[in-house]
């Protein structure tokens, strides 16, 4: 145990070197920069924005539209004069949206004849704020349309609710999960579950990839620096050497993934967490009613699945590390592992494993890294057989890989195993 902790400390120190610390700080700085730029742009979009309005009609309806625009968080800069001159003026200013209400608009609208409002967007870039302005104006005009058409219907058919006339059929949506049922839409439930769990696949991918890369690099560096042979002759079990490397890689990998995710969350956290909670608040009782929540037992099962997957990744990476001769080959050898992690990552984001064809499903589930990506879904939808199958599969995978890894380290193969396309050369 004394020798193991001694080895573990050395491995952690070797992995947590200056280069790693610099790259992690760099990631944080870059994410912070991206986050600041994006947030500034979002704030601009949310803040009161200036638009120009040319009201050539000056009717009651046109004044109402301008009033509504005012209420919709716009600062109105009212223009007067000829349209062409106003457009020329705006072209040379920082304003980028002009709403023109033509003469006669009010009269046409009040006599329920087609009336037009013109909006001119002055495109100077592709910022979010510019797009939002147009959308808000469009929404306002739609509301005005709705109001005018309701007025028209009320005049023509008194005593009838215009809303009922426009939408005589109402749709009550229900969602059924196994033997449970609740009122709500499928889109709402899927949206809520996605919003709740969108960060999980990213976390999983980061942890697996970082840990695997760490252990491959640790072994490759021992070979490159010619320290492995000496280490293998010290009075400490080969198992302890392997385990110290794997545990150190897992710990440093976890820290790196946590820092990466902190930066990621910081950069792409557009909405306040409170807003998400509020949005989910309405759906939460529905999710509970449908049993789409995770209890303590569920979290424990997910933890077991994740732990076994990390062990799989570390054991596989250790074997690949033995094949590597130096840092450069180690980087190339980690590519297949990254691909194996990317497959379930993308499938969990864009597809449903349960609706895939059987051969495709078997192929995906044969990858030991796949199981935790689908574990949460399996827990929530009660597919516990699938979850347990994944845990047993990964457990067997880990046992075989760890046995194989320890065998490699206990025999000549730790020194003689090489990935070479040309004939092997042996030092006598």
């Amino acid at each position, binding site marked *: 145990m*004394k*020798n193991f902790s*001694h080895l573990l400390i*050395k491995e952690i*120190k*070797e992995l947590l*070197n*200056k280069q790693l610390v610099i790259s992690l700080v760099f990631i944080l700085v870059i994410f912070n920069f991206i986050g600041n730029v994006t947030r500034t742009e979002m704030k601009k979009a949310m803040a009161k924005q200036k638009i120009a309005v040319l009201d050539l009609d000056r009717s009651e309806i046109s004044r109402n539209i301008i009033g509504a625009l005012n209420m919709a968080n716009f600062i109105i800069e009212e223009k007067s004069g000829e349209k062409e001159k106003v457009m020329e003026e705006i072209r040379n200013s920082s304003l980028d949206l002009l709403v023109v209400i033509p003469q006669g608009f009010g009269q046409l609208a009040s006599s329920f004849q087609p009336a037009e409002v013109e909006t001119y967007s002055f495109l100077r870039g592709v910022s979010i704020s510019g797009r939002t302005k147009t959308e808000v104006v469009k929404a306002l005009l739609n509301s005005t349309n709705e109001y005018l058409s309701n007025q028209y219907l009320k005049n023509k058919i008194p005593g009838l609710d215009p809303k009922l006339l426009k939408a005589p059929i109402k749709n009550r949506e229900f969602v059924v999960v196994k033997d449970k049922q609740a009122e709500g839409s499928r889109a709402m439930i899927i949206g809520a579950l996605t919003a709740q769990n969108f960060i999980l696949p990213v976390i999983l991918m980061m942890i697996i990839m970082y840990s695997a890369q760490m252990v491959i690099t640790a072994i490759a560096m021992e070979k490159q*620096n*010619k*320290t492995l*042979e*000496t280490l*293998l*002759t*010290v*009075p*400490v*079990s080969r198992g302890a050497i392997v385990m110290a490397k794997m545990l150190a890689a897992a710990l440093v990998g976890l820290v790196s993934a946590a820092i990466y995710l902190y930066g990621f969350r910081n950069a792409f956290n557009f909405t306040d967490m409170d807003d998400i909670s509020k949005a989910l608040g309405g759906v939460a009782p529905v999710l509970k009613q449908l049993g789409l929540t995770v209890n303590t037992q569920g979290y424990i099962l997910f933890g077991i699945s994740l732990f076994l997957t990390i062990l799989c990744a570390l054991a596989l990476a250790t074997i690949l590390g033995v094949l590597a001769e130096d840092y450069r080959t180690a980087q190339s050898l980690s590519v297949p592992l990254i691909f194996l992690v990317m497959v379930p990552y993308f499938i969990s984001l864009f597809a449903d494993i349960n609706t895939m064809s059987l051969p495709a499903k078997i192929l995906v589930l044969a990858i030991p890294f796949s199981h935790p990506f689908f574990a949460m879904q399996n827990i929530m939808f009660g597919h516990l057989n699938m979850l347990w199958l994944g845990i047993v599969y990964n457990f067997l995978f880990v046992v075989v890989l760890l046995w194989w890894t320890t065998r490699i380290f206990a*025999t*000549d193969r730790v*020194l*003689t195993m090489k990935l070479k396309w040309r004939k*092997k050369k*042996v*030092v*006598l």
Partner: protein
Amino acid sequence: MAPVLEVEGLKKKYGSLEALKGISFKVEEGEIFGLIGPNGAGKTTTLRIISTLLTPTDGRVTFLGFDLRKNPEKFREKISYLPEEAGAYRNMKGIDYLNFMARFYAANENEAKLFVERAIGISGLGERLRDKAGTYSKGMTRKLLLARALMTRPALAILDEPTSGLDVINSLEVREMIKGFTREGVSVLLSSHNMLEVEFLSDRVALIDRGLILDCGTPQALKEKYQASNLEIVFRRAVQ
């Protein structure tokens, strides 16, 4: 007196390549035993087997009465191995490297300190031990590693090409270090293709070529037997 190390009929195959074809020799306590031969003769394979890095295909190796196949951990406790192309952890200071290695062999903190103090003396690197090993020259790294190999006063120090890649001055210093240590009872098994170096250092030598030991004896006895002025000529005549 019983030998420290006994090698009997040692064979090693890498696939179809037979690197060792059944070699036998003994190393006595406090003696320097040299294996000499050209590149590819089987010297490194022999040393790697005794250091527990490789498993023999056939034959027997006993060290202080322990069998290599049954008790490799006993070998690791009492043997120090210096590989030909060894390095130190580049991000570790020289002194930290010695500390790290000493703790595997020491029974307690005090003994570890004693080992490190001894290594500081052997290496002669002085204040440079406070610098990272990555900044050392090849000669400095070799001295650090030799100090690491000898600091525990192993029952057997296995040194593969101890002066490999060193300049004349550094080579002389390293040879003096090795010679000095055997006076304290440490046995040394070394290999080199520099036959003059082996002649200077060794009490007895074995001539090895293509996985076979051609002859074994003191440098003087071998020179007389082959009527040669040095071991290079002895080796050439033995091969013929």
